[in-house]
């Protein structure tokens, strides 16, 4: 490998050495310059010729295009169809067209009208419904107001009556209480008077107390000695039971 590398490097060096001192021959230089000049002159002439050819070609193309356009116009004019009579065509086609179109137009109109009616009815229904609802609500509010007013009046009247009846009852009750109190007072006064009279009686009778006491003792004695079987036989004694309350 070392030998191969040396061979390659040596060969390259030899090759470079061979060509390093070479000079181009004068004839070759002149010939090259002459050929370059020829090529340049040929090229200039070729450019001018090409320009002329191009110009002529453009003219040819323009003439050919104009001829083709004119030919096309002529052919078009000659081959165009005859002009139509629109009035006759209209008269001829009108019945058939009308017959074919009329049912469809009718159906379309009917359908359109139905659609419009349905829309109008729907709108009216909604409007009426809204108005009725509003009116109903107004009536209901008015009735509620009147009812509330009437109920308030009735309630006030009933309450007034109730107050009056309560007042009457209270007055009657007070009258009865006053009467009872008066009666009680009268009774008290009467009892006082009777008590005073009783006390006077008692005082007057107390003067004979001893006698009465002894007499009472006797009576008690008698009652203690009397047997029941003898009671019937005993003569009735006048027994005086003092009344608790003496008449005034």
């Amino acid at each position, binding site marked *: 490998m070392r*030998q*191969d590398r040396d061979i*390659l490097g040596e060969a390259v060096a*030899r090759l470079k050495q061979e060509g*390093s001192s*070479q000079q181009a021959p004068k004839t070759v230089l002149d010939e090259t310059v002459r050929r370059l000049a020829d*090529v340049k002159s040929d090229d200039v002439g070729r450019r001018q010729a090409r320009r002329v050819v191009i110009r002529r070609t453009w003219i040819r193309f323009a003439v050919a295009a104009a001829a083709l356009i004119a030919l096309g116009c002529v052919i078009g004019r000659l081959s165009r169809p005859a002009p139509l009579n629109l009035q006759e065509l209209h008269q001829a086609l009108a019945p058939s067209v009308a017959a074919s179109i009329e049912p469809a137009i009718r159906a379309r109109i009917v359908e359109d009208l139905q659609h419009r009616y349905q829309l109008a009815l729907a709108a009216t229904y909604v409007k009426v419904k809204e108005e009725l609802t509003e009116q109903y609500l107004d009536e209901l509010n008015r009735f509620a107001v009147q009812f509330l007013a009437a109920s308030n009046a009735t309630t006030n009247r009933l309450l007034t009556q109730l107050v009056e009846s309560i007042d009457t009852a209270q007055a009657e009750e007070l009258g009865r209480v006053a009467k009872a109190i008066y009666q009680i007072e009268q009774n008290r006064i009467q009892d006082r008077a009777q008590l005073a009279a009783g006390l006077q009686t008692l005082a007057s009778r107390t003067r004979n107390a001893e006698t009465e006491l002894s007499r009472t003792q006797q009576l008690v004695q008698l009652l203690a000695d009397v047997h029941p079987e003898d009671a019937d036989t005993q003569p009735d004694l006048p027994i005086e039971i003092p009344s608790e309350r003496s008449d005034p």
Partner: protein
Amino acid sequence: MAESGIPRTRHEFKRRKKVRTLLEAHDWQVVVEEYGPLVWQTAYRLLANHADAADCFQETFLAALELARRQHVRNLPGLLVRLATTRAIDRLRQRARRDRHEMGAYDCERRADGAGPVDRIEAGDLAWRLREAIGQLPSQEAKVFCLRYLNEMSYRQIARELRIRVNAVGVSLHRAKARLREILAATDVKNEVSHETG
């Protein structure tokens, strides 16, 4: 390949500007006088034949003229070297196909100066074998090898002139060197065997 790339001196810049002006003015006589030696060296180095080198020389300038008319030329020396190398390699390939086993077409009129007869013959034989090997390479590999090792162009300049990627330049160069080594080694062994038997 000192003419390609960025001008490094003021003189070179002025000369390039002059050449560009002449090229734009279609004054190709000055262009030929200016770059004729470079193109001749490139062609003759590969072809080693006056007639073929002269044809290649003229074709190179004519092709450059056509290219200059069609498109803007940024690097005229690079273009001329590339065109000369391409045409020389084409002729080498034609020659290799035509008389692959003949050596008569080789013009031995010029030898290395200052060397002995054996060295001259050996040097001529080695250079001829390298030319023949370059003629056996694929076109792109041969171009890349010649532009790199004979014209000393950089990878980027080669890629720009051949309109390929820099990586492709490296790959082509590697393949070219490998094939050239194989061919040169094979011919070397063949020569040794023929010498021994002779």
